[in-house]
């Protein structure tokens, strides 16, 4: 009898793309709403974004069942934090919690590619980008998911400081205004939708600033 290999995988990839951009006093987090499996579409209207705390919003692409499980764990942990500390978790604190939660399952990972956006303790925009096992970094902008290979170089072109040798890239925040950042995000997704089959249908954009959270939608190509 020839050697048999396992052909069942606990994972599936539901596709989709997420982007986040940090501004001086705002943060934009966006993701498409298409959920796929293989070459089929499961639904055109599934949100990949969740608000974990007052100033922390997470967008995740990958295997949505794992994404949902991860969201629930973080929500429960945030409730416990609030009971113990009598306040909401800050975005940097949530960033560390997300990293620890992902690494906790280092040997059976959450198949979830995350981008965490929000406002830091000084009110400045912050974006944290992750891999599936919790390696993370604070950055000024990031994208994850099936369209990230198309979007990331474009964001680098538009947002990356010209010369890291002259201007320190430590200040991880873009000089764009809020509306400019939102327009940039819309442009990113319109382009990614053209060439990535897993990205499209509708774009969900969340803007976090001192006045609160604002949600916006934009139609994308449905093919």
């Amino acid at each position: 009898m020839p050697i048999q290999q396992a052909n069942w995988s606990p994972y599936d990839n539901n596709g989709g793309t997420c982007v986040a951009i940090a501004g001086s006093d705002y943060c934009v987090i966006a993701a498409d709403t298409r959920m796929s499996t293989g070459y089929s579409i499961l639904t055109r209207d599934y949100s990949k974004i969740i608000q974990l705390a007052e100033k922390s919003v997470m967008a995740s692409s990958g295997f949505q069942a794992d994404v949902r499980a991860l969201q629930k764990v973080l929500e429960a942990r945030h409730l416990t934090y609030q009971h113990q500390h009598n306040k909401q978790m800050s975005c940097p604190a949530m960033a560390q919690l997300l990293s620890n939660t992902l690494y906790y399952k280092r040997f059976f990972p959450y198949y979830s590619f995350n981008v965490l956006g929000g406002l830091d303790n000084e009110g400045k925009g912050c974006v944290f980008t992750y891999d599936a096992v919790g390696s993370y970094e604070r950055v000024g902008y990031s994208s994850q998911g099936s369209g990230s290979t198309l979007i990331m170089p474009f964001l680098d072109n538009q947002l990356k400081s010209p010369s890291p040798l002259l201007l320190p890239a430590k200040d991880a925040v873009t000089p764009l205004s809020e509306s400019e950042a939102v327009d940039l995000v819309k442009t990113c997704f319109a382009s990614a939708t053209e060439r990535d089959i897993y990205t499209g249908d509708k774009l969900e954009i969340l803007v976090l600033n001192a006045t609160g959270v604002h949600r916006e939608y934009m139609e994308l190509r449905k093919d």
Partner: protein
Amino acid sequence: MFRNQYDTDVTTWSPAGRLFQVEYAMEAVKQGSAAIGLRSKTHVVLASVNKANSELSSHQKKIFKVDDHIGVAIAGLTADGRVLSRYMRSECINYSYSYESKLPVGRLVVQLADKAQVCTQRSWKRPYGVGLLVGGLDESGAHLYYNCPSGNYFEYQAFAIGSRSQAAKTYMERKFETFAESSRENLIKDALFALRETLQGEKLTSTICTVAVVGIGEAFHILDKETVQALINEFEIAGEEAPANEAAPEDQGGDAQPGGDVQPGAADQGPADEGVAPMDI
């Protein structure tokens, strides 16, 4: 209750069929400062007297938020109360995680009662020395329960525990039939009146009491000092006339601001999010 040869262990019955350690634990509840609860069809109000040990110290926390839809007021050994509140919070979080819905109040109190019962049947444990007034909302309406150290629990329209609670109970016994249809404002006022009865002449101010509300469309939250003081001033100015005697339809629906007496912007109505930290308890 006098010392006798059957009261050393909780696992020893007396010849009369009593567990004295459990009864002594209930005495501890009676020694704590007063806590009261009352409910209508749509709201539950919990209130407690907060006596600080000295002028220099802060007072003990006696009312805890357990979840958006449940809160608890305690009397007795507050350390035991704190530990049980942590347990209740954990149970609510786990239930929400598993079922993505709110833990019904009746289920929580049963779990709490079973936990208390365990301590009445283990030789290496002691009963919890705290009485809990659990107030909350679920699909079947507003509920108020009392959990005692014995492991028993009862549902109430209104109840009071702790020292001089009988005075509050007497007041509420006269009024309880009006509570079911009472407006939110009148319910809070009745709570303050009942609380005042336990002070026996001492002036009721917002510095020595804590009031918390939960209702339909209103997450459990503790009212801030200014709001409570404004309500106290309101009924004292009105010549100490009990609020249920005023025109009952006046504040129907519960969300109307009573006149201009309450400070504008006070977190007296609706969700607690305006200007108050979400878990500010």
